[in-house]
């Protein structure tokens, strides 16, 4: 089966359990099992190739520009891990079916499990390290979901969060390390990286890359000092613990160390960091495990200890160490998963995992007892079980390892760790299963159905078979070890045997087992000593650290972002001015290349009006109506400036937008207070003045420098000028740019405009349907009202002028392609014509004559523009390619027909709709407030002089 399919199957299969959830638990578990089994069989179809020493690969270019390709490869190591992941996964699914209670949502559980399985398979089969990182993060996420599966338990949530924080942090470091590695080699493909041992180890970036990668591996594989998250992750359902935290996920770090072993190992840095971390983790985990009373906590720390053992073996950098590591990964996966499942059975049946409340289960649960005992004895290193073989190899390797110049150090610590390891295994057996039957179990336990004990039993069969007949797996272990080592060195073939003769490792093994038994004899006083000894509690430290980080971040955020808009404004202004000034001062500015153009009196007058109006606004801004007039002057002068500087289109747009903006602000001012009170202190006003003047100065200087120099390279406008007529069929280059060269841009903008108008409409609707409505209805106008609501002169004038304005709009639209004008401007002009009707004749009068809703007009505009663009697909041209032709219909002159005009029609409609919808929304608020608005225009407000109407009391 293709490697892609093996990786993809669990991911796609993850959709199924959720769908099958309602079909019953059997169907749900069955479909999950089927998916995993298919992937497993698919993997096995690749076995012959792997056994033949080939590397199966599959490749799809994904983002070649980033060096990120979907490349998968399957060699001995990848096959070994994939086999563990999928094989144990099958057993876990079967076990989980029996383990989960009816209250648990099985579909959700199996969905997460399959997601995790897919991510894990992805890690071990990735040939691209960036791809590997993606899968790596996916395992962190899916394991977060699995650990926190029992959402109602606070321990579950805390454990999940801690696991995600620690492994996520490590994942971040790993990304950095992998990118460095890719930088060194110049490729992100593992197969290339693994070929470049010398290049990598000679690089100055080797050490940072190594440290970052190891940080990722150590956090994932719970190595000291990051070991603390694993025991807290035991709040997960037991199948999860058995799967993630013994057999697979925690081995991801180990896998990566093994995968990169050929290029990273063999240096003193690797040796000291990895071996020391592994050794400390092994001893520490074993000692803590002995004194844990929770079965799963004991197993968790024992897992930590065994992961340390494997890490240490990889750290030694010898081929024998690598082989021993591979063998121990296999053995540990079998006995530890079986032990976790047995612990789950005990918990499931006796409703407690506390060793102090257990004992004597041997008589009540003979099957579970047999399974757990065999697995535990294997873990303790008793001969004829597989744990003995790999532990012996570890001790053998330890006797050859010299750390910090002390040849006795590693063997002594290894023996010490093994002693505690044996002790906790004996405690597990002795205190749980042996001893007299008690009468105070929470519920009386008995052996579960075969569905629960069969999966661990299968694993225990493997434990015994490998233990008795190691030659069965020997060749496979050699194969995997060879792919770990890569081409770096020849594997020193040492046959795996039960009896090696009277070697030091044997004596160390005996010492460990005997010491473990003695330890059990003095367990009670040792426990008292342990409880009395002060120990740092990792969870408290971790949470304290997190709390400090959070308060630090909060202090920073609340200082900058405290809900005061004027503070954000000031901070942003200071930052921009500061950064800009710094860039300006440190950068270089060439000499001016342009002559200053002479100033004309007209320009000076316009400038004076603009500056006077703008500055007056600051001084008169408390009178809001006055400031509105002043901003009108400023806007007018800007428009005049545009005309003066050869931009007629801009001037037309600016002046029409100015009109609608002022109308809009007037409508708003109808409700808002007419004056701004003095609120800020003199200090604050002085501060703002300084800031404002600084901002004004830097922009002046920048604009002046800018204007006095030519562009450093030829602007692309040359292209537009040259092709406007030839390619776009129009002589108004600005319009051709809008509807043709940059048509897609314009298309986006009319959509934005439409969305803004719809947003205003929605806000109005919300306001009018909420409590504001009542306030509006009860509101009294705060200003005296005009005597005639609809002055006759104005009504007549606007109605007469309406067709004229529409004609002007039509004319501006039509000529837009060749002369100043176009959709935007004519849309604004037509809007003004309609708004005038609203203003003069009243809302009711105008809206009663409204044929088409404005939403529809916006929609039609966007649709027409979009369809025009799509039209070019039919002649196999890209979106929005325009075309034009000249036609002549007698008796008219020859005129031009361009698809761009159709696009411009869309722009026109969208602008009209958007402007009108905004203004209409505002005036709807007004209509609600001042109640009597009659259908009849040209009337005198009948209520005005009626003293009985309290609403008009303002007069």
């Amino acid at each position, binding site marked *: 089966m293709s490697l892609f399919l093996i990786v993809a199957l669990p991911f796609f299969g993850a959709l199924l359990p959720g769908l099958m959830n309602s079909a019953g638990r059997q169907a749900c578990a069955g479909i999950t099992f089927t998916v995993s089994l298919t992937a497993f069989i698919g993997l096995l179809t690749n076995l012959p190739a792997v056994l033949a020493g080939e590397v199966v690969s599959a490749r799809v270019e994904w983002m070649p520009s980033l060096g990120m390709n979907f490349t998968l490869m399957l060699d001995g190591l990848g096959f070994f891990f994939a086999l563990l992941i999928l094989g144990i996964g099958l057993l876990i699914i079967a076990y989980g079916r029996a383990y989960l209670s009816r209250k648990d949502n099985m579909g959700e559980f199996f969905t997460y499990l399959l997601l995790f399985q897919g991510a894990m398979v992805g890690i071990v089969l990735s040939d691209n390290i960036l791809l590997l990182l993606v899968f790596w993060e996916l395992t962190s996420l899916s394991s977060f979901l699995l650990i926190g599966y029992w959402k109602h338990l606070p321990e579950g949530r805390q454990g999940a969060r801690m696991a995600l924080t620690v492994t996520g942090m490590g994942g971040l470091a790993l990304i950095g390390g992998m990118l460095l590695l890719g930088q060194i080699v110049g490729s992100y493909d593992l197969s290339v990286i693994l070929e470049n041992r010398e290049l990598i180890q000679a690089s100055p970036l080797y050490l940072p890359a190594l440290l970052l990668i190891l940080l990722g591996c150590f956090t994932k594989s719970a190595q000291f000092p990051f070991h603390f998250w694993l025991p807290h992750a035991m709040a997960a359902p037991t199948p999860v613990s058995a799967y993630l935290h013994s057999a697979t996920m925690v081995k991801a770090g180990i896998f990566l160390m093994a995968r990169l072993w050929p290029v990273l190992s063999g240096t003193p840095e690797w040796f000291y960091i990895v071996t020391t971390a592994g050794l400390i983790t092994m001893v520490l985990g074993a000692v803590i495990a002995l004194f844990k009373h929770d079965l799963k906590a004991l197993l968790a720390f024992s897992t930590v200890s065994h992961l340390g053992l494997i890490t240490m073996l990889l750290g030694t950098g010898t081929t024998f160490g690598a082989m021993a590591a591979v063998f121990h990964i296999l053995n540990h996966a079998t006995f530890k998963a079986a032990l976790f499942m047995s612990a789950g059975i005990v918990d499931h049946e006796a409703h407690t995992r506390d060793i102090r409340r257990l004992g004597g289960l041997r008589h009540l649960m003979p099957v579970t007892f047999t399974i757990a005992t065999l697995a535990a004895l294997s873990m303790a290193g008793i001969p004829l079980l597989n744990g003995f073989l790999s532990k012996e190899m570890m001790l053998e390797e330890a006797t050859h390892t010299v750390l910090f110049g002390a040849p006795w150090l590693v063997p002594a610590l290894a023996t010490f760790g093994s002693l505690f390891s044996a002790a906790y295994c004996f405690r597990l057996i002795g205190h749980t299963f042996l001893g007299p039957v008690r009468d105070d179990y929470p519920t009386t336990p008995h052996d579960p159905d075969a569905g629960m004990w069969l999966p661990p039993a299968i694993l225990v069969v493997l434990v015994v078979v490998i233990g008795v007949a190691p030659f069965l797996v020997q060749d496979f272990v050699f194969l995997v070890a060879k792919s770990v080592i890569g081409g770096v060195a020849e594997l020193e073939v040492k046959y795996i045997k039960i009896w090696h003769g009277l070697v030091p490792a044997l004596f160390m093994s005996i010492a460990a087992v005997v010491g473990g038994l003695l330890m059990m004899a003095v367990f009670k006083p040792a426990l008292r000593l342990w409880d009395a000894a002060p120990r740092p509690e990792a969870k408290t430290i971790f949470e304290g650290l997190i709390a400090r980080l959070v308060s630090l971040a909060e202090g920073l955020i609340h200082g900058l972002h405290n809900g005061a808009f004027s503070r954000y404004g000031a901070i942003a202004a200071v930052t921009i001015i500061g950064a800009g000034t710094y860039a300006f001062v440190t950068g270089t500015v060439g000499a001016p290349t342009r002559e200053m153009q002479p100033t004309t009196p007209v320009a000076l007058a316009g400038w004076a009006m603009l500056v006077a109006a703008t500055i007056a606004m600051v001084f008169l801004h408390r009178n809001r109506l006055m400031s509105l007039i002043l901003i009108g002057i400023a806007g007018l002068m800007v428009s005049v400036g545009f005309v003066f500087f050869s931009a007629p289109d*801009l001037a037309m747009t600016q002046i029409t*937008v100015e009109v609608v903006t002022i109308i809009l602000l007037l409508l708003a001012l109808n409700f808002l207070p007419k004056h701004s009170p003095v609120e800020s202190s003199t200090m604050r006003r002085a501060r703002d003045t300084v*800031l404002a*003047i600084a901002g004004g100065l830097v922009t002046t*200087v920048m604009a002046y420098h*800018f204007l006095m120099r030519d562009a450093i390279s030829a602007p692309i406008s040359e292209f537009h000028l040259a092709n406007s007529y030839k390619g776009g069929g129009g002589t108004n280059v*600005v319009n051709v740019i809008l509807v043709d060269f940059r048509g897609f841009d314009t298309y986006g903008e009319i959509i934005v*405009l439409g969305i803004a108008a719809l947003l205003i409409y929605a806000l109005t609707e919300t306001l009018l349907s909420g409590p504001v409505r009542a306030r509006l209805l009860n509101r009294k106008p705060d200003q005296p009202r005009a005597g005639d609501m609809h002055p006759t002169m104005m009504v007549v004038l606007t109605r007469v002028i309406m067709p004229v304005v529409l004609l002007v709009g039509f004319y501006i639209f039509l000529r837009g392609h060749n002369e100043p004008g176009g959709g935007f401007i004519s849309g604004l002009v037509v809007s003004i014509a309609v708004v005038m009707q609203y203003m003069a004749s009243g809302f009711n009068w105008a809206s009663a004559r409204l044929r088409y809703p404005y939403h529809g007009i916006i929609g039609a505009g966007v649709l027409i523009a979009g369809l025009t663009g799509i039209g070019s697909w039919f002649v196999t041209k890209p979106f929005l390619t325009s075309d034009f032709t000249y036609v002549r219909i007698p008796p008219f002159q020859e005129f031009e027909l361009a698809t761009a005009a159709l696009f411009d029609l869309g722009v026109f409609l969208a602008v009209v709709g958007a402007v009108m919808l905004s203004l209409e929304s505002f005036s709807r608020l007004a209509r609600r407030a001042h109640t009597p608005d009659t259908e009849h225009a040209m009337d005198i407000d009948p209520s005005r002089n009626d003293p009985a109407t309290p609403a008009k009391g303002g007069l």
Partner: protein
Amino acid sequence: MELLVASAIGVLTACGLYLTLRLRTFPVILGISLLTYAVNVFLFSSGRLTIGAPPILRDNIDSYADPLPQALVLTAIVISFGMTAVVVMIALGAFLGSDDDRINDPLDEESTGSGETQ
């Protein structure tokens, strides 16, 4: 001429900034409008100043103002209308809902207020 335009941009920016830092919604909106003018004129001036040569193609003339900044600013003007309208609506909604057109959260008023008196 260049100095006039540059200083006009500066004045618009300065006054816009000052008004943006006020404490009520209406002046802030007007301040943002002034900043919009400043930005639009600045962007427009990136095509440099040309007098009497609009980018309307004519026979026998080959010197035109830069059309690209004009096209970009044209859409910017229309979009800024949309933005102003939305902001005004939000300000209006907030005022109608709470009878208060202050721009800052009341809680922070106090904290900034105490900071100012120190």
